[in-house]
């Protein structure tokens, strides 16, 4: 931890706090039926998105998933426009056409969340191919889940990226579940990273709740990619505190597919609390500094929700815009 500068450390914390605050709001607003459609939150998984994106350049790109708010925020996504999109407002990132599962910010290299599990892997592979074709040195990071690692697109993408030595990092956020199905009941390996052997590429397992470890490993993988040494499969072990979809308790009840106790165990490994401990031990960062970040973020989110609420809905006439260029 020492090697990392204070500014970076504070950024890592700020990003995690922002994700946590954003997702907590979204969860509550969805429970209050203020938000249409399904929302998937990544509370408890903030460190992987944060650590990976902190190791990237603004000109680098990411692909995300149905559980993408954290990835987008970590890559610089503006919470007000994200919130407005989730509200279906015209001021949202996609003018209300996409919603929670489809937020995109091309200016930040965010190629998009995606409603189709595993769809991001070929897209990220192609994004990396584009860098090679165009002679640029940008790198693409691809976020996906343990469940997605059983999709054929995982296999086809990793093989393609490996044979073409493409500048892409495949980041598997293994949170132990695909919807309500425990990972081990549908996945033939304990560690997704083992599957890197099938493509003769590096496969790393990291503690996905340790933002610094994620950052360090992601930095190496990204450096390899940028140097033309090809893809890496980076598995971040983590856990989803909330339901697969906000509100699932309504039709599943609680404890339907995992014990309260298991959830509580993981909450003890909260990436934010963990970072706060590190910070304290490091002596470099004061509790006040962290508190300030939390307070600023609360205000930022307050403003984002206000912006979203007060923004206009799209006009029905806009429905036919944006199908074609």
């Amino acid at each position, binding site marked *: 931890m020492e090697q990392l500068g204070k500014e970076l450390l504070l950024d890592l914390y700020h990003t995690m706090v922002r994700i946590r605050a954003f997702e907590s709001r979204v969860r509550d607003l969805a429970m209050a039926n203020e938000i*249409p*459609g*399904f929302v998937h939150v990544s509370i408890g998984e903030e460190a992987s998105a944060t650590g990976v994106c902190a190791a990237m350049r603004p000109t680098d790109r990411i692909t995300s998933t149905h559980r993408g708010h954290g990835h987008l925020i970590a890559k610089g996504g503006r919470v007000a426009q994200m919130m407005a999109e989730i509200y*279906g*407002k015209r001021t949202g990132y*996609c003018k*209300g*056409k*996409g*919603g929670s*599962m*489809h937020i995109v910010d091309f200016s930040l290299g965010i190629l998009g969340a*995606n*409603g*189709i*599990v*595993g769809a991001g892997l070929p897209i990220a592979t192609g994004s990396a191919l584009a860098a090679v074709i165009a002679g640029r040195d940008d790198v693409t990071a691809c976020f996906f889940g343990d*469940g*997605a690692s*059983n*999709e*054929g697109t995982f296999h086809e993408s990793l093989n393609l990226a490996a044979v073409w030595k493409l500048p892409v990092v495949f980041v598997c956020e293994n949170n132990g579940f*695909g*919807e*309500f*199905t425990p990972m081990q*009941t*549908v*996945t033939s390996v304990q560690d997704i990273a083992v599957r890197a052997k099938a493509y003769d590429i590096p496969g790393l397992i990291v503690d996905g709740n340790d933002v610094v470890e994620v950052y360090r490993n992601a930095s190496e993988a990204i450096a390899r990619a940028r140097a033309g040494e090809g893809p890496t499969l980076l598995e971040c072990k983590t856990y989803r505190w909330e339901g697969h979809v906000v509100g*699932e308790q309504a*039709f*599943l009840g609680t404890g*339907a*597919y995992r014990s309260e106790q298991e959830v509580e165990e993981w909450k003890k490994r909260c990436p934010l609390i963990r970072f706060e401990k590190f910070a304290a031990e490091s002596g470099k960062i004061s509790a006040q500094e962290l508190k300030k970040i939390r307070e600023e973020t609360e205000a930022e989110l307050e403003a984002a929700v206000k912006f979203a609420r007060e923004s206009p*809905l*799209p*006009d*029905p*006439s*806009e*429905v*036919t815009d944006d*199908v074609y260029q």
Partner: protein
Amino acid sequence: MALTNFVQAINQALFEEMERDPLTFVMGEDVVLSAFGATKGLIDKFGPKRVRNTPIAEAGFVGAAVGAAMAGTRPICEVEFASFFYCAFDQVCNQAAKLRYMSGGQARLPLTFRCVFGAMGGAAAQHSETVYAQFLSVPGLKIAVPSGPADVKGLLKSAIRDDNPVIVFEHGALGRLREEIPAGDYLVPLGKAAVKRPGDNVTVVAIGAMVPKALKVADKLAKENVSVEVVDPRTLIPLDEETILASVEKTNRAVVADEGHLRGGAATDLAAMIAEKGFDFLDGPVRRVTSLDVPIPFSPPLEKAAIADEARIEAAIRELVGRR
């Protein structure tokens, strides 16, 4: 007699058919806990051998269902949302649909697919699509689009007993629709349309969730002495052309209403059939009421603007009866 909702009706059909034939089994993503409730409780009665959560691997498990059907079992395979079929199109269109024909009739494919489809409020483009149009041009498949609890129970049971691949499309917005279902072993044959409401002035051929909408419009217009006949094809393949054409012969006017898109859609398919085979019956063009040809947007006002609704059915009817 008790009212049963759409999802309960599906659940009943599954219990009854799995009870009836030990070679039936259910597979799909999260069929054990069942997000929508259709497969709820099956695990307790039939156990993990016959109720299987699959990995998220549509090509793999849909293709496995095809193989299992060819090897002497009767799979009931759930694809959570119709648009996830896109991940398994080869298995459905190149394998399930063609294997019997390519093998000169040797392959038997007692295979049922179930999926939820349609706009259900803010699910956005990848979870709101009406995908059956893409299967209409794939000979070898049968396609059922039930519009209510009794039909979904009867059609699903027939689909499960059918020895061909049948896809049952369950509209996500019909889940809470309730009605009485005839007691006993209730079957609805594949290929038999239903006249959901008799009328004389105009025929509305309505598919799936458009049926209740068409009935609402018919009620409204009845007060103005416009008599609307609502015909529900119930299955798109096989198609009961006879019942549809008989209705048009009587009314001389036809509207086809479907939640899918216009270009290449089911409404267009039925309209072309009516316009060609019913040419001499028609006093006016067959009007197609469909959703707009745009991906289904997320924001409620945009979604509403995109999706076919009562207002458009009503307008089409008024335009036709208003002609000359």
